[in-house]
């Protein structure tokens, strides 16, 4: 596993400019917006203590229940901050202007959040869910010692990758064997390369990859991301939780293959043609081109695909994506804008 890529992901942060909602400002002049860096792999409610000094003096009397909003859309706090940014800011806004509220929690849109404990609970449960998908059981996570659980959560909160890797490796949730990336790595000697091959083969414990997809489907095209309409409701976004099954070793399984496999509604016909197309490198090029530029009637077009803020080429080996870009909860979070005709029954 390339340590470099994972480190970039863990060190990634979104610059935020947080404004207190005008209805909650009781001082004159109103407080200045807070400029803070939010870790990509973190969660918005964890910023509460950082924001407190900026706004606590201006709030009306009452109980504080923090929540965030972007252009009127209450933000779901259990979604990692980086994913929210990638999904909702088609044209990345720097800094990202968010509004913070301490009153009037929108219980009809957001599930309750009682601060750090709620976020930790959500994280641990996602981890258990991932373990269940990979191993068919959450035992490894459930049997973690209490100190390990605490340290693991703290390492995520504080972005301590070394500690995270040390503890999470005990969970044996594995990496995906990646023959193709392995072969591309420069190896010091042939003997060394063979050892790596053996290790890679032995490491193929998992063939079910936990994935969370955030999909916006539209049918009227637009040129620039700047023209993408902004979301005023979560009903416009499909939250899809389906594992990717990597079935055949030795077959070159791309990111595009993975996306198609978890969206059968869009790719019913082309699923059968993946195998023949992928064998030929040139065909993969054509496949990628057609997905991104041509818009045949009835053919879905991926307008935007982002993972950890990166717009990846669709023919990249999926195993590389998983091993390097997955989140601390062992899920791969994928943001997708897809142009597709309206499906039957919608």
């Amino acid at each position: 596993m390339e340590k470099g890529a994972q480190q970039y992901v863990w060190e990634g942060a979104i610059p935020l400019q947080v404004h207190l909602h005008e209805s909650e400002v009781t001082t004159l002049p109103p407080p200045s917006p807070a400029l803070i860096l939010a870790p990509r792999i973190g969660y918005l409610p964890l910023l509460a203590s950082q924001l407190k000094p900026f706004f606590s003096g201006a709030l009306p009397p009452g109980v504080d229940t923090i929540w965030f909003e972007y252009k009127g859309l209450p933000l779901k706090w259990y979604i990692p901050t980086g994913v929210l940014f990638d999904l909702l800011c088609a044209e990345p806004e720097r800094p990202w202007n968010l509004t913070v509220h301490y009153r009037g929690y929108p219980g009809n849109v957001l599930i309750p959040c009682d601060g750090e404990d709620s976020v930790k609970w959500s994280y641990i449960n996602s981890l258990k869910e991932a373990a269940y998908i990979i191993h068919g059981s959450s035992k490894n996570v459930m049997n973690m010692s209490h100190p390990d659980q605490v340290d693991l959560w703290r390492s995520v909160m504080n972005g301590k990758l070394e500690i995270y890797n040390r503890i999470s490796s005990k969970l044996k949730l594995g990496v995906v064997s990646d023959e193709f990336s392995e072969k591309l790595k420069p190896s010091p000697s042939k003997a060394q390369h063979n050892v790596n091959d053996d290790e890679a083969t032995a490491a193929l414990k998992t063939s079910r990859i936990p994935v969370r997809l955030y999909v916006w489907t539209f049918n009227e095209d637009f040129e620039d991301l700047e023209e993408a309409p902004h979301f005023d409701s979560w009903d416009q976004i499909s939250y899809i939780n389906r594992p990717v099954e990597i079935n055949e070793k030795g077959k070159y399984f791309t990111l595009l293959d993975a996306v198609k496999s978890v969206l059968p509604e869009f790719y019913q016909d082309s699923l059968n043609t993946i195998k023949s197309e992928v064998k030929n490198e040139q065909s993969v090029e054509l496949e990628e081109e057609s997905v991104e530029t041509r818009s045949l009637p009835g053919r879905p077009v991926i307008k935007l695909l982002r993972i950890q803020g990166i717009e990846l080429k669709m023919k990249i080996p999926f195993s590389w994506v998983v091993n390097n870009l997955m989140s601390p909860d062992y899920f791969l979070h994928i943001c997708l804008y897809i142009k597709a005709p309206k499906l039957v029954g919608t």
Partner: protein
Amino acid sequence: MASDSPITSRKVVVHLRATGDAPILKQAKFKIAGTDKFSKVIEFLCRQLHRDTLFVYLNSAFSPSPDQLVNDLFNNFGVDGKLVVNYACSMAWG
């Protein structure tokens, strides 16, 4: 929702199982639309048991987010053609 289709508009059988000292329901099995969110199962349970909060798990393993689709949960974690939901009044598997 964008991905509705004849397949996803099916009903999913949910089997509710009491854990610890949680009261046992007279009617423990019911059907719910696959396109509904898991929050509907939680709300149903809370209403039936006259409680504000419950701890709800799948296969005695983890608590899914209320925003997850019943279809996805069934496809990923369904056992013997049904979704097994365990509920408790206090944290069972923390």
